[in-house]
Structure formats: C-alpha cells, structure tokens
C-alpha cells in the first residue's frame, strides 16, 4: 500500500518486517497480561498477506479471519489502533470491543474479521456482488485457511461467485493445519485446485519460500479479476511457526514433526526477501518499522479503557 516508487522486494520486506516485528512484540508483551485475549499469530505466513496486498488499492475490499494481524497490517491498517485494540483500550480500531480476532479498519477497506471459520467468505462474495452492482472499479480479496474449505459455506460461496462472475480473488493460506488437525485428515481427493476448477474458477498453487513468485502470481490473478474475468483462486502454501493460538511454540504437542517446523524456520521468507535488498536499504526499512512499532505500543499503553456505559453502545447502528 505504500509509495510504489520502491521495488516490489522493498515493499514486501517493509510489510513483512512490520508484521514480524509487531507479532514478536505481542509475544514479548503477552506474559504481562496486558493483552487479555486469544492471539492467532501469522509469523511464518507474512509473505502471503504482504505479496497479495501489495497489488491492492485502498478502495479494494479485504476480508480475513481471526488470524488477521498480517492482513490488517499488509492492507495498511492503522498500527497504533491495532495495538490499542489488543490492549482493549478505547483508542483501539473497535474501541476494545473486538480484540485481536476482529480487527477492522474501514479507512483502508479492511473489513472486520470473523472468528467463526469460513463465515467471512460469503460476506466477501456479497461485497463483490455489491461492487459489481455499483459498477465500482474496486475488487474484493478474501483470505481464509485451508480448513475453511471444509465448510459448506465455501462450496456455496465459490459456486455463487463463479455463477455471477464476481470481482473477487479467493486466497487460501494453506498452512497444512487446522489447529492440530492435518489437512490430509480433512480434505479428500486431488486438492483445492481441482475443486476450484470444478466451480469454473481458475486456480493456481504457489509453493512456500517463493515470495517473489507469489507476488508475481498474485499480481496476475488480481489483474485478471480487475479485467472483469470473474473470480480467481490462489492456493498459497505457507506455514505457521507458533501455536495455533497464543504466543507460544507448540512442539510439545507433537502433532507435527520438529524437522518439518525447523525446515520452515530455516527457509524464512523474510530472510529471502531481505537478501534481495542492499543492506543499507534493508536497515533503513527496519529502522522505520521499529519506530512505528514502538510508537504503536506507546500509543496503546497511553490509551485508556472504555467507559462503563460504552458496553451499551452500537448494539444497533444509527
């Protein structure tokens, strides 16, 4: 979302580094109990949000999930208000009522995220329907995990989006697991690309550890959607380094081999992108990000909690 003068690698690095650092700070802060809510971290998955969102305009509409920090940040969501939201403070993006699972920033069309798996997908399709009715140039991008494709809601949404040739890109972050359940224990058959094509939606899979290729393929898919060619489906192989929820590691649960995780951490996408940049540029990006993160935390710390009577506000609109 930031100035396009930079190289794609630079923009990607800035976005991914921001996500990484914000979540590392969340890990650091969590033991203080200042963040009194579940957090679903995207460390290891930063490249997907960063690569896709780099092709989006403010006016493009984004739907995501409870694992939404990366998406919110990549779309250009307000960082201080995100931190304040995690703190449950009144300056949070939802005045503390949403927390980590329901980040929202209308100013960049980052729609509020849902913590009920797959429920945002049909909403995204509906938003795309509205954009088409309104003859808007904007498109919708809808993020979800591979687990969400188990749900009937995904089937119904894919079919309808294709039927109406809606301007929407479906991005599946396939990190292999739904909590501790492996995709092979939930998904039968040849896989999601075949399923997507069975709805008449062109699909493509991008392997992990190829952030620049991911950026390029995402750009191509988004361009096609913008040209009015109807929905596209992008399956992005990725990997969650931390526990499904919470700041910690989860090796003790032994649901995935240590080697699998180690290899992923080895092949860190952030490192891959960083190495594409001259050291000084990388340093200056990092410095700028560090300041943003520090400022955001300071903002959250300084903010106050909502007044009691706010508990009754906004049950209804208007």
């Amino acid at each position, binding site marked *: 979302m930031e100035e396009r003068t930079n190289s794609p690698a630079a923009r990607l690095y800035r976005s991914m580094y921001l996500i990484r650092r914000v979540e590392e700070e969340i890990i650091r802060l969590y033991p203080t109990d200042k963040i009194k809510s579940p957090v679903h971290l995207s460390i290891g998955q930063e490249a997907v949000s960063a690569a896709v969102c780099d092709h989006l305009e403010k006016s493009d509409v984004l739907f995501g999930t409870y694992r939404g920090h990366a998406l919110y940040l990549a779309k250009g969501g307000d960082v201080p208000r995100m931190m304040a939201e995690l703190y449950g403070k009144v300056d949070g993006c939802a005045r503390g009522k949403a927390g980590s699972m329901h980040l929202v920033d209308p100013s960049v069309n980052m729609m509020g995220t849902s913590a009920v798996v797959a429920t945002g997908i049909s909403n995204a399709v*509906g938003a795309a329907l509205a954009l088409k009715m309104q003859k808007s140039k904007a498109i919708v991008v809808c993020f979800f995990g591979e687990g969400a494709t188990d749900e009937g809601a995904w089937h119904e*949404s894919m079919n309808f989006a294709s039927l109406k040739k809606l301007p929407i890109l479906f991005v599946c972050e396939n990190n292999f697991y739904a909590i501790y359940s492996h995709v092979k224990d939930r998904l039968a058959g040849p896989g999601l690309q075949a399923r997507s094509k069975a709805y008449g939606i062109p699909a493509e899979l991008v392997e992990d550890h190829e952030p620049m290729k991911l950026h390029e393929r995402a750009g191509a898919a988004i361009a096609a959607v913008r040209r009015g060619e109807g929905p596209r489906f992008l399956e992005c192989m990725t990997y969650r380094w931390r526990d499904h929820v919470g700041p910690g590691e989860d090796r003790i649960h032994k649901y995935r081999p240590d080697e699998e995780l180690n290899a992923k951490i080895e092949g860190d996408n952030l490192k891959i992108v960083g190495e594409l940049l001259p050291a000084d540029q990388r340093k200056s990006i990092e410095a700028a990000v560090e300041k943003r993160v520090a400022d955001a935390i300071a903002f959250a710390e300084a903010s106050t909690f909502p007044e009691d009577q706010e508990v009754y506000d906004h049950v209804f609109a208007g």
Partner: protein
Amino acid sequence: MTMSSRADSSRADNRTLTYGEAVFEATRSEMARDPSVFVMGQGVDDARGMFGTTLGLHKEFGPERSFDVPLAEDAMTGVGIGAALMGMRPIQVHQRMDFVLLCMNQIVNMASKMSYMFSGAHKVPLVIRAIIGRSWGQGAQHSQAFHSYFMHVPGLRVVAPTTPHDAKGCLIQAIRDDNPVIMIEHRMLHNVKGVVPPESYEIPYGKARVLSPGKDVTIVGISHMALECVRAKHLLEDAGIDAEVIDPVSLSPLDISTIAASVERTGRLLVVDTGWLSCGASSEILSETFERIGERRHFVAKRLGYLPTPCPTTKILENLYYPSPQSIAQATYRLVRGESAPAWVPGKVDSAEVAEFRGPF
C-alpha cells in the same frame, strides 16, 4: 375475509389489499425509491413470485435487482450481509421459516453483531422475510416458527405484522433501517384483505396495536393468531366476556407498556403464539408483564400455542396442533370464570384462510 385495524378505520381512503399485495407494494415502492434496494431468494423471479409478493419485480427493475439464487441458504445469507456492508439494502425471502435454520450462523454470529463488534465501523441494512407455513399437510418440516430465536439475540429487530396495513408499513420501515430486521410473515395471512393506504408510511418498532378493546381479559395474539384471537373475542361475547385483543406487531423491541397497561386493567392475560411455548415469545411477554406490574397488581395468566410436539401431517391431528378460535375462547373462558365455572361450549367460527388453503405450499 376482511380485517382492518381500527387505527385506520377512520381514514378516508378505504382501498383494500391482501397481505401479500401489501408486501409487494412495499417492496416495489422502496425499490423504486432507492436503487440500493434489491431482492434475492429462491424463486423470487419465477412464475409464482413468492406467493405474488415479488411477482414481476425482475421485469420492472431488471434481473440484477430481483433474482433467483442457488439452494444455499447459509451463503446466500452471508452474501446479503456482505452486500449490505457495502451499502446495498438486500431483501431476502424464505418460502418457509424452517429453512432459516440453515441461516442461523450468518444471522446470529455475523449480522446481529457487526455493528457492536466493530463499534459502528460496519452496519448491516438487511431484511430477511421468513414465512411460517401451515395447513394442507405441511408436516413437521414446513410449519415451524422461530421468531423467538431472533427475539433472543441482541442486535436484531423482529416484526410480525398481522394486518396488510402493518405488513406494508413494517416492511418499509425494515428496508429503511440500517440494521438487520427479521420480518415474520404467516402463509395463512397472505390472502387476507385489509385497508392499505396507497402512500408510503412506516410502522415504528416497539408499538403494539390494540386490535379490539375490552375490559375483562387481555388476549395477546402473535401474527396469524391475532386473527384467531379476534374471532375468539366474538365467540366470547356469547359467554358475556369482553376481551381486549392486542397484536404486538413488533416482537423485538416489544411494546410491553401497552400490554402491561391492559393487564393492569383486566387482571388477566392470555398470550396466544403461532409457535411453541417453551422459551417462546409467549414466555417473554408473560415474564416482562409480570416483572413490570406483578408486584403491585395481582393477575392471572396463561399461554397457548402449538402443541409440544412436531407438527403432524394428517389433518385430523393437525387440527389439534394449532390453537383455534374455539380453543382460545375456551381457555379464555376458564381464565376469566375459573376452573369451577359451568362448562361452556364456544360457537363454531370458520377460519376461512385456513379452511380454503390448498397449498401446496
């Protein structure tokens, strides 16, 4: 048969429409007024046009503004919510409320919470029309009423108009509302006629309607049952009982003041619901009335509704399943005269909209 709500009997214009026509008129006039209003639902653009309530709208406003959808209740509800988030005003129609059980996740987990969860960053101007079925062997799966499910959830508005007049005004109000509204219709009401002003008007939330005043007992009838209660009132005259019949119209918010004020006068409350009793609208109405006046005013109360069973298909049992003018009158008689009073047999009265219904749906 014709029914006009007293509130309007004074007005010069006495044009009558059926309930279905009133729903159609409200929809059509709002679509003409506001281009963001559109209709989506299974069969809304077909030859039957949802019992006429959406007939031909796709021709008048174009296929983008009134269209058929796949059999996908969950996602179609989500699509409506998503479109509403972007400023559109979708009207969704379900031929049977039974199918809305497939929409509960989207309605309750999403639509009802978005304004609150995001502190006003989102709003969901969505109207969901759900039709309660009855008669001609609808059976257990095409006859259910779940208005209490929506009354249970903060962030939803629920209206259940009985008269064509209120049907039009409630729907217009719902369409213009920035919040999700569930409009409860009853299949038995669609062909009922009543006075409907041609101009556009809104029926405010939380305002009950006294369909017929009385002094001995307060009968609250919901949706189609309000009609049956008016018939029961006439039967009760023969027993010298003067019943006041109240139609809540708006179920959430509920106008408990009007009901409580009536019970304060009559000292007796009978709530007749077109649904099951347990945790139903009738239990809420009774409870709120009691909380409101129970301490200072002694009164007696009873609830009537569907039998605590699924709905049987065979007519002979189905007839027992629903409250009737007779059973309502009988229950009222006992409530007023007490269990020890001499037996009284209410007269026969014909509920034409039920007797004449041949469905199939």
